[in-house]
C-alpha cells in the first residue's frame, strides 16, 4: 500500500493511504472543509482559524490508533471476524473518522439548524439517510433513537448523506453503508448479536460516544493548542493505548485500562474548561447571535419551493442554481460572509463587521454575574429574575426579526394588548389562553419599562439585548459519564468510573443565567469621560431596580 503523509501541527506526520487521498481527501467535497472554521472562538482568540479539514485528518489519525488498540485487546478471541472482515471494518472505521464532518454547515454548529429549513417532518435529511443506507435494521434503530429523543445531530446526518452519495466506490454494499453511517451518527446496533454487533458497537463508540471518543479528543487537544488557551495536557497516546474491548455479561464492551484514568479525567476537565470560559463567554454568544440572525436573512432571501441555501445540493461542486440570485456551490463560511456583505445587510449584520458598533455586555462572565446578584437577591428572587429574562428573550425571538428591547418593543406590546382583546372577543383564543398571554404581555412591558428607566437615568440609549447562557455544569451528562468502564488487570477487576473517580461531584442547581448587552453613551468631550455610563453603572442601577421589583413579585 502506498501512503502519503500530511503534516499535522498537533500529531506530526499522519500517514494516509494514497488511494484515500486521491479518491476522498483531494475531492472538492472534502477540500470544502478547508473553508469551514472548526470553532466559533475567533472573536475571543484571534488565532482560532483552524478548520474542519485538519480536524478530520486528526480524527482519522487518532481513530487508527484507537482501533488498533481495541483490536489488539481482542486477539485471544480470534475467529469472531475473518481477517478480511476485520481489515474491511478497520478501513470503514477510518473512512468514518475522515468523513465524519464532511457535511458540516458554514460556521460549524451555527449553520446546521438551517438544514431543517426544507420543511419536512420528520426532516427530509433523516428520511434521505435511511433511504440511502437501505437497511431495515438501520431504519428501525434510527426510529428507536428518535423515540428516545436521541436523534443524531444534523451535521452527522448530512455527513453520511454526502459520503454515501459521493464516495460510492469506497462505501459499497449494504453492510458498509450501515456500519459507516452508524459510526458517524453514533447509532449503535440495538438488538445485538453476541460476537458481532456488540464488537461493532465498540468501534461505533470509539468515534461517537457521549463521553470520550476520537472526535472529541482531537478537538479538545487541537482547539486549545491552536488558539493558545492554557489548559491541562492530554497524553492522548497513553489514553488510546488504554482502549480495550472487555466482556461484560457475555457481551463485548468498550473499556479503558486503568492507566488511562488520569487522562480521561484531564480530557473531561479540558472539555469543561473550554465550555465554561470560551463557549459561554458573552463575546462568543453575541457573535453567534449576530451570525444566526444573518443566516435567517440569507435563508429567507434564497428560499424557493424545493430549493434552500443551506442544503445538500449547496454543499456539492455542482451546487444549486437560484436564477438571477446566482449559484451556490461548495457552501462555506466565505459564502455566508459574502452574502452578509453584499445583499443581506442590516443593522445587526453591520455589527458583525464593525465590532465597535456592538453592544457591550453589562457583566462579562458567570462569576461577575454571581458577584453582582447572587448575594444581593438570594436564590429564589434570582431564580425569578433569570426566568423573567429568559422569557423576554424568548418573546423577542418569537415576535421580532431583530430581537432588541427598545421603543419598538414598547409600541408593539401596547398594540398587542388590543389584538389579544380582539382575538378573545372573536373567540379565536380561549379565556385561559387570553389571560396567560395578557399576563405575559404585562410582564414583558414591566421589565422593558424598567430598562427604559435605567437607560434614561444613565443617559444611554434604550437599546438592550438579552442572551441566555447556561450556568457552568459539566458538559457531560452524569448518567453518561458514569458508564465509562475502567479495567484493573492486576486486580482482575472492572469498575464503573463513578465508583473509582471523584470527578462526578457536581451538584444540581439553577441551570441558566443571562447576559444583558447595552450601548454606551456617545462621548462628547474628554472631560465627560468619567461621567460616562459604564457597564458597572448599568449593573448597579439594574441591581437596585431588580431588587425592588423582585421584592414586589
Amino acid at each position, binding site marked *: 500500500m502506498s501512503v502519503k503523509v500530511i503534516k499535522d501541527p498537533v500529531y506530526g506526520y499522519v500517514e494516509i493511504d494514497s488511494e484515500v487521498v486521491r479518491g476522498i481527501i483531494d475531492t472538492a467535497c472534502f477540500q470544502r472543509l478547508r473553508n469551514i472554521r472548526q470553532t466559533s472562538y475567533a472573536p475571543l482568540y484571534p488565532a482560532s482559524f483552524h478548520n474542519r479539514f485538519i480536524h478530520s485528518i486528526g480524527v482519522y489519525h487518532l481513530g487508527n490508533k484507537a482501533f488498533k488498540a481495541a483490536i489488539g485487546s481482542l486477539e485471544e478471541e480470534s475467529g469472531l471476524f475473518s481477517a478480511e472482515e476485520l481489515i474491511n471494518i478497520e478501513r470503514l472505521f477510518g473512512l468514518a473518522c475522515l468523513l465524519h464532518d464532511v457535511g458540516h454547515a458554514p460556521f460549524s454548529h451555527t449553520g446546521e439548524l438551517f438544514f*431543517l429549513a426544507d420543511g419536512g417532518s420528520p426532516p427530509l435529511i433523516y428520511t434521505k439517510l435511511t433511504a440511502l443506507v437501505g437497511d431495515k435494521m438501520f431504519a428501525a434503530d434510527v426510529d428507536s433513537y428518535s*423515540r428516545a*429523543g436521541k436523534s443524531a445531530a444534523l451535521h452527522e446526518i448530512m455527513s453520511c448523506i454526502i459520503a454515501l452519495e459521493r464516495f460510492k466506490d469506497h462505501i459499497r454494499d449494504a453492510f458498509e453503508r450501515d456500519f459507516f453511517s452508524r459510526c458517524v451518527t453514533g447509532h449503535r446496533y440495538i438488538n445485538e448479536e453476541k460476537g458481532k454487533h456488540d464488537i461493532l458497537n465498540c468501534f461505533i463508540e470509539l468515534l461517537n460516544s457521549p463521553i470520550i471518543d476520537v472526535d472529541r479528543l482531537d478537538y479538545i487537544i487541537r482547539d486549545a493548542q491552536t488558539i493558545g488557551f492554557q489548559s491541562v495536557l492530554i497524553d492522548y497516546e497513553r489514553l488510546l493505548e488504554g482502549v480495550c474491548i472487555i466482556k461484560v455479561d457475555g457481551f463485548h464492551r468498550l473499556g479503558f485500562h486503568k492507566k488511562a484514568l488520569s487522562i480521561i479525567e484531564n480530557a473531561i476537565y479540558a472539555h469543561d474548561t473550554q465550555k465554561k470560559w470560551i463557549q459561554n463567554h458573552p463575546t462568543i454568544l453575541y457573535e453567534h447571535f449576530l451570525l444566526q440572525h444573518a443566516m435567517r436573512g440569507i*435563508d429567507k432571501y434564497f428560499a424557493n419551493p424545493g430549493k434552500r441555501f443551506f442544503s445538500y445540493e449547496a454543499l456539492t461542486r455542482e451546487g444549486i442554481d437560484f436564477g438571477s440570485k446566482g449559484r451556490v456551490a461548495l457552501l462555506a463560511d466565505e459564502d455566508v460572509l459574502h452574502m452578509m456583505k453584499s445583499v443581506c445587510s442590516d443593522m445587526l449584520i453591520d455589527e458583525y463587521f464593525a465590532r465597535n458598533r456592538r453592544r457591550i455586555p453589562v457583566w462579562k462572565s458567570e462569576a461577575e454575574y454571581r458577584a453582582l446578584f447572587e448575594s444581593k437577591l438570594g436564590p429564589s428572587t434570582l431564580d425569578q429574575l433569570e426566568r423573567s429574562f429568559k422569557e423576554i428573550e424568548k418573546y423577542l425571538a*418569537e415576535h421580532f426579526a431583530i430581537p432588541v428591547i427598545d421603543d419598538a418593543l414598547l409600541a408593539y406590546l401596547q398594540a398587542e394588548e388590543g389584538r389579544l382583546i380582539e382575538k378573545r372577543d372573536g373567540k379565536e383564543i380561549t379565556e385561559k389562553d387570553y389571560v396567560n398571554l395578557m399576563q405575559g404581555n404585562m410582564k414583558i412591558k414591566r421589565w422593558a419599562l424598567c430598562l427604559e428607566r435605567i437607560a434614561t437615568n444613565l443617559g444611554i440609549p434604550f437599546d438592550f439585548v438579552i442572551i441566555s447562557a447556561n450556568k457552568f455544569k459539566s458538559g457531560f451528562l452524569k448518567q453518561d459519564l458514569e458508564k465509562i468502564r475502567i479495567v484493573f488487570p492486576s486486580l482482575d477487576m472492572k469498575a464503573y468510573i463513578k465508583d473509582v473517580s471523584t470527578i462526578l461531584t457536581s451538584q444540581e442547581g439553577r441551570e441558566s443565567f443571562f447576559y444583558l448587552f447595552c450601548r454606551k453613551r456617545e462621548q462628547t468631550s474628554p472631560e465627560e469621560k468619567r461621567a460616562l455610563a459604564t457597564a458597572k453603572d448599568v449593573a448597579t442601577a439594574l441591581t437596585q431596580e431588580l431588587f425592588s421589583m423582585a421584592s414586589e413579585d
Partner: protein
Amino acid sequence: MFKFIGIEDLVANALIELIENKNCREVTFETLIKYGAVVLNVMRANGDEAVLLLSREHTDELIWNYSDLFEIRRGDAGNDAIVLRSEKTVDDLRARFRAFLTINSLLAFTDQLSLAELGVAV
C-alpha cells in the same frame, strides 16, 4: 419569519392539553414527533416558516435546563416519555410556556389537527 421551535415548547404545550383534557401528565417522544409535525404544517399553512429542534443535543438541553419541570421516563421498547414532575401543575406550564407565544404559534399548538395527534378531542 423563520422560527425554531424548541423541544421544551412542544413538550409543555402538548402536556398542557393532555393534562387539561385527559388528565395525562406524560407524553412519549413518538407522540411528540407526530404532534410536532402537524404543528409545523399548521404554521406553514398560516404563512410561518418553522423547524423543530428535536435531536439528542436538544433533548440533553431539555434535561439540563428544565429539570425542575420535566423528567424522562424510560419506557418499554425504547418508547421513552417526558413526564411533568409531580409537584408541578398545569398552571406552572401555562405561566412559562403559554404567556409569551405569538398568536399564530398558540393557534398551531392548539389547532384541532394538532390536538388530534395527542388524542385530544375538542
